[in-house]
């Protein structure tokens, strides 16, 4: 016999997970760029997270845990696989760009851009750079949280983030 209802586990999960719903949805939409896929992705993320909630260690970072599930779910989806196939992460260990390479793009941006232009430029970034930029700027995650979410070392976070910012600036300069 199945009894439909809540249990303490799902209550605790709901309390932690539902406040993240809007931001996870927004982030998912940036990844998939499609409403139906976003809804599927968010739904699957919540189902997986609820199932695996007993393995979540309380006291650790729940937000990074949820984002990691969402991102991994996305990467194994059809759209995710297609998106990542076109990404080259070559020269990831190049380290941060020299200051002189980034002399004016922000100035150019502030003079000429509007939100829609920035949105188009972010959309245009390969997914690996789009996600790291949004995790840092929109979700205001620390480098450590980003490293945890993306399962990459801190050094990679810094170099990839730097490259993402450079790529965004280049797109805005066009």
């Amino acid at each position, binding site marked *: *016999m*199945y*009894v*439909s*209802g*809540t*249990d303490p586990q*799902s*209550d605790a*999960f*709901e309390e932690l*997970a*539902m*406040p993240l*719903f*809007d931001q996870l*949805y*927004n982030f998912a*939409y*940036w990844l998939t760029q499609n409403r139906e896929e*976003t*809804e599927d992705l*968010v*739904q699957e993320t*919540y*189902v997986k997270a*609820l199932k695996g909630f007993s393995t979540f260690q309380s006291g650790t970072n729940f937000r990074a845990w949820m984002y990691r599930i969402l991102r991994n779910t996305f990467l194994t989806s059809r759209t995710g696989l297609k998106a990542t196939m076109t990404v080259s992460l070559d020269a990831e260990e190049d380290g*941060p760009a*020299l*200051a*002189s390479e980034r002399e004016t793009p*922000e*100035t150019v*941006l*502030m003079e000429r*851009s509007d*939100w*829609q232009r*920035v*949105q188009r430029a*972010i959309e245009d970034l390969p997914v690996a750079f789009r996600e790291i*930029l*949004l995790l*840092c*700027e*929109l979700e*205001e995650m*620390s*480098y450590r949280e980003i490293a945890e979410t993306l399962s990459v070392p801190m050094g990679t976070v*810094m170099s990839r*983030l*730097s490259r993402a*910012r450079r790529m*965004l*600036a280049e797109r805005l300069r066009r």
Partner: protein
Amino acid sequence: MVCEPWKTQLDKYLDGELPSEQMHAFDAHVRSCGSCAAEALARVQMKRTIQAAGKRFVPSAEFRRRMQQSIEAKPRRGVAGLGWMIATATLIFLAAGLAITSLGRRQQAVQERQLYSELADLHVGTLASSSPVDVVSSDRHTVKPWFQGKIPFAFDLPELENSEFSLLGGRVTYLEQTPGAHLIYKLRKHDISVFIFPAGVSRSKKEEPSAVTKNLSFNLESWSQGGLWYCIMGDASRADIHQLAELLKRSTGLPVS
């Protein structure tokens, strides 16, 4: 290139990722170096722009409800007497109702904050612009017709002859992809924004008329009237904002909802 070492660390500084003693050193350097200060400012503006542009997609109410239900309806195997089941189901129903209400309220509050932040951005951004209004006129009979064909509705503006307010002009603006009117009024040294949108512009807004409230240090008042949603925002006093709201409400002559 004395500043080269500083500039390579600038992103880490602005992301708050330097150790505290380096943060202090950076603070001191930025205060004394015009070049680094200018670059820091530009990058901060860039961060803010990305942040604002990134908040873009909102789940539908229907999807939110589905998600909520799928979490709450997690199946659980068990054998129990009918009485126990009914009692449990009743309790669950009540608890879920409370949880939904409280979650719904919390989400509504967050969305409301986002909406008013967006309006505050429009207000500040417009005033900071070198040409804040597209139609420059203190005459409501000039400003109102200017919007014809530019926005999908018409509105009334109050006669200001016997008040301290003056109309500076207006511009077309957008909120959640919906076009609306943005009017700027002057009161002594204060600039006040009046936003007018179709009443269905955003589910995040307050449905009932608000008293003057404080949001992001601005005073604001909002209400719906005649199928339109009005929001007044500015750094003028609460009483002044309310007075302008009353003038606008009276000019329309329709019931406020």
